[in-house]
């Protein structure tokens, strides 16, 4: 009964906080300060600035405290549970240290879920190969006949999973440990990947150790996944270690508006294009610089100008160039007051001038 009241109180506190915050937003006028009022240093510099870690001593003490739990974690893994680590701070070093210190008896595969792309099929293939190697060793030592060479690449995900879910021998301890850093990472967030991971976690030859960082990560899983497949045991292990590798793919909040940066990226993109495409872009840029008050250059004008200088032979070629520009967000289309389609480069005049200079070098 007490619990129910507690839960209700929590819920109440949550909604109260939410509405308080909303009210605050409505009542007092929002601050009109602009980010551009701050003198922002170059992104390169921001990224390269060395930041000293605070509380390094305490953090390493925290880590060594966790070491006392390693044997418990191994016990839990052997009992068939998955470990889910959460809490603030990067847990990459902690989990890998745990794996290399305490899981020496088992093969360990690490998946870096924080990367923007992870191909789960390849992961499964590698796991299947690892397991078949392991089983072969076992069979050799136990002296029983080995089956014919198994090849996996041609098999489907279902087949690989059913191989990993093969019957356990008397020694129930034959498993591969899969470490997934950021199982809630961008590449693994879609339902299909989570389904695959859940099925992987439920395989008899697999145990999973994973970490989450997002507060809403549990929403990725339904009850079947939680109770039957992942079978998580939660561990609250805040490390306060910096997210060095995990954060590489996040944009810097102070860098996104910086003109220098976008001009630089634009230059890099343009340099990878054909000279004709570059020249078309230059026509557009020069037009925009000479007509700063207009919405942009009408597409037809760009076509005729480019054709005159023999940069394009047909509308189709121009369109292919334009698609390329649009894909890299170098060009935006807009309709002007006459209803004509206009092309516009989303850069300031200064940045555009700098860009043209770079291109002409």
């Amino acid at each position, binding site marked *: 009964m007490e619990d*129910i009241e507690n839960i209700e109180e929590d819920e109440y506190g*949550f909604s109260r906080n939410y509405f308080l915050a909303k009210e*605050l937003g409505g009542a007092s006028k*929002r*601050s009109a*300060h602009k*980010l551009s009022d701050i*003198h922002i*240093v170059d992104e390169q510099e*921001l990224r390269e600035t*060395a*930041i*000293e*870690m605070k509380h390094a001593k*305490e953090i390493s003490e925290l*880590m*060594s*405290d966790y*070491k006392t739990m390693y044997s418990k974690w191994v*016990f839990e893994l052997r*009992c068939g*549970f998955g470990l889910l680590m959460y*809490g*603030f701070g990067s847990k990459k*070093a902690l989990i890998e240290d745990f*794996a*290399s210190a305490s899981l*020496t*008896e*088992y*093969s360990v595969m*690490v998946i*870096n879920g924080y*990367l923007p792309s992870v191909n789960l099929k390849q992961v499964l293939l*590698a796991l299947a190969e690892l397991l078949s*190697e392991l089983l072969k*060793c076992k069979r050799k030592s136990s002296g029983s006949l080995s089956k014919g060479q198994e090849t996996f690449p041609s098999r489907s995900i279902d087949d690989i999973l059913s191989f990993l879910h093969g019957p356990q021998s008397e020694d*129930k*301890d034959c498993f591969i440990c899969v470490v997934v850093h950021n199982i809630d990472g961008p590449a693994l967030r879609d339902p299909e990947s989570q389904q695959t991971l859940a099925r992987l976690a439920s395989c008899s030859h697999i145990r999973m150790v994973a970490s989450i960082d*997002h*507060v809403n*990560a*549990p929403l990725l899983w339904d*009850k079947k996944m939680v*109770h039957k497949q992942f*079978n*998580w045991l*939660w561990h*609250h292990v805040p490390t*306060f*270690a*910096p997210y*060095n*590798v995990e*954060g*590489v793919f*996040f*944009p*810097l909040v*102070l860098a996104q508006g910086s003109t220098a940066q976008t001009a630089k990226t634009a230059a890099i993109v343009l340099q990878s294009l054909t000279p004709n495409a570059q020249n078309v872009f230059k026509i557009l840029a020069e037009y925009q610089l000479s007509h700063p008050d207009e919405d942009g250059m009408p597409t037809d004008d760009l076509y005729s100008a480019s054709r005159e200088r023999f940069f394009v032979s047909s509308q189709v070629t121009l369109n292919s160039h334009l698609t390329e520009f649009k894909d890299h967000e170098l060009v935006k289309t807009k309709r002007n007051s006459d209803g004509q389609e206009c092309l516009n480069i989303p850069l300031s005049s200064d940045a555009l001038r700098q860009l043209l200079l770079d291109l002409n070098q």
Partner: protein
Amino acid sequence: MAPSGTVADPPPTSTTNSFNSGDTAENDIRPFFVLHKASSSGSNLNGKLTGTGKSKRRIESPSPKIAKRSEVESVEEEDGQFFSTLRFKVFETVWSKIEKTIEDVLRNSNSKVFSGIHDWIRESFESIISSGALKLSEAVRSYPVLTQASSKQLLTAMVLTRNLEMVDDLLTFEELELHLKSQGCHVAKLSSMDFSAKSGVGGCLRGLLRQFVMPTVDVADVTILASWYRENKNHENPVVIIVDDTERCCGPVLSDLILILSEWAVKVPIFLIMGVSTAHDAPRKILSVNALQRICATRFTLSSPAERMDAVLKAVFLKPCSGFTVSHKVALFMRSYFLCQDGTLTSFVRTLKIACLQHFSLEPLSIMLEHFCHDGVNQLSGEGTGLLTEATMKHAFDLPSVTRNKITRSTFEMLPHFLMDLQRMPNPWSIVVLCIYEAGKFDKLRLLDIFCEILDPEARYLKYFSPSEIVNSQSHNSGSNNVIRRVLCKLRDLSPSQLSSMLKSWENLTTEFSEINDKVMELHPFMRSVEAAGQRQGLPNSPKKHASRSHSKLEKELKAMTDKVATVIEFMLREYMKPVESVPFHEILCFKNVDKLQSALLGDPRGRIQLDLLESHNILHCVCCSQRGTTLLPSMHDTSILYTLAQEHADVINLHDWYQSFKTILIPKSSKAKQKSKSSSKSKKRKDICEEPEAPAEALIQARFCRAIMELQIAGLIRMPSKRRPDFVQRVAFGS
């Protein structure tokens, strides 16, 4: 390859860090890699965990937490290997016993429905066959098109699960599959995953063929099924298709499958079993009209989750099982988790497993549970097993329940005796619980509620028991939830027939325990006189309340009877209601640590991650930030400062303001004054600052600000500026 850091030297990346530190290992940017391979696959169990043992010893650092470890633990470390291996083995034994018990209970609860389904299949199959056997050539052809409506009917069983949570029924349908297979049927099981709009009806046909014909089939052609069915002796048995979660299937695809299969109904007698969890008319909502017309449905109903729950509870805790049990608090937690949060039996079983696991990892003496799993405790006395070492004995006599009962080492020889008692103890206790459960059934009381209440070592009735007092005390603290009170109240309203059926079940329950059985037997004469009185009135079954004035004789007899029953209940409670927690040495069997269970079962990332940030000093235990009170100090973790600042903002945060307040915190007061005087005049000043030697500090602050924001974003606490609102970030989480 592996970043193996010891305590002495923390990970190399720890002192200074930048976003683009060049030493990011190659492994960090690979999607996946093999950290290491199993060291030696030939090693036996005894060699296991050597690495752990070593690492454990390595961390003999002066950290206060470690120094606090109990003596037993450090002694245990010496033969840690032995105990780890043993513990794991005993856990396996205990848990597999519990698991098997639960499986058996669930199987039994379903067996009636299963055999009902099988009988239905057999009967229908025989009637189809008797209508005329087909030749192979006829059966494989898709023509002649059948015109009779009756021959296009697809026989379907609707299995009502009475449970909205599919998780609990996954096992049920697996069992059903096994059951039907063992009876000779050809069975394939499809789930909602197979009925996706993406792969269409071809996907589920392919799935069927893979299960029936061979696993490598990659075409979706129902004629393959037909010809397979005619092969060998396949046609002697019916074909059954189980769809376990009908409501989650894609309706059009399921309809298509039904239409296709019904066309072939005569050639391949297919039986469709659909698990329906909402209501019996659910198929009407998802299937097309055409498909509905082809279905000839029969209904079966499974037992409800609450019934199954009670059955499981009874088998695991009240009948001799593994010996493992839980304390009052843990039981209450499990109950509220079941009732308020999850509501599935699966989660309840999982909670139980976690409790069992935690018990083994926290309580060194838990390994003694092994002996409770087997019959008799004869082996316990043997020191040869290495169980009763000096260290474990010391631990055993330091248990709170032992010191509380003033049992000292002088009664050393008594340990086996006590343990014997522990094992015997639940018997009369569980008999009493089951008797109360029987009596409570008339008031629809759940065993789960009774079980939770009766485990309470502080219960009032244990100290001064008087039935009349309990019934009359309205002001009792637990109010209407007092199970015993409800049972006693209900007793007065029972009809004679209900009383007699209760007596019968009590008699059955107590046969093995003569002390209680005798008391129950003493009730029979009273029962007889009640029945006699009832017959005289000619109204043996009418409830007492509605009896008219002329029935005063019956009323009197009933009153005497219920009083007598109440006395028996009083006797049972007084004599045998010893909750497990009041028994010495119960810690060996009983899991008590509800906090550990809760934190392992229910991670609370939303609350905990925010708390980590708001109260970082509690976790880091640093001297500098611990005494800060409500002020923010520059020594705090950057992200922590930033998130605490964010609490003062509304649902959107102005980046500029946020940055400025972050900067004010970071710059120590002395230099702040200097800064202030400078920034009095506006834009020109900024340039000055840039040229001042403090400029790098500005870059550093910005870098730290960026990183803190990035970390908040990783934690999902804020959303980045949108195009529409480029100067604001949005707060996502409000309070924990």
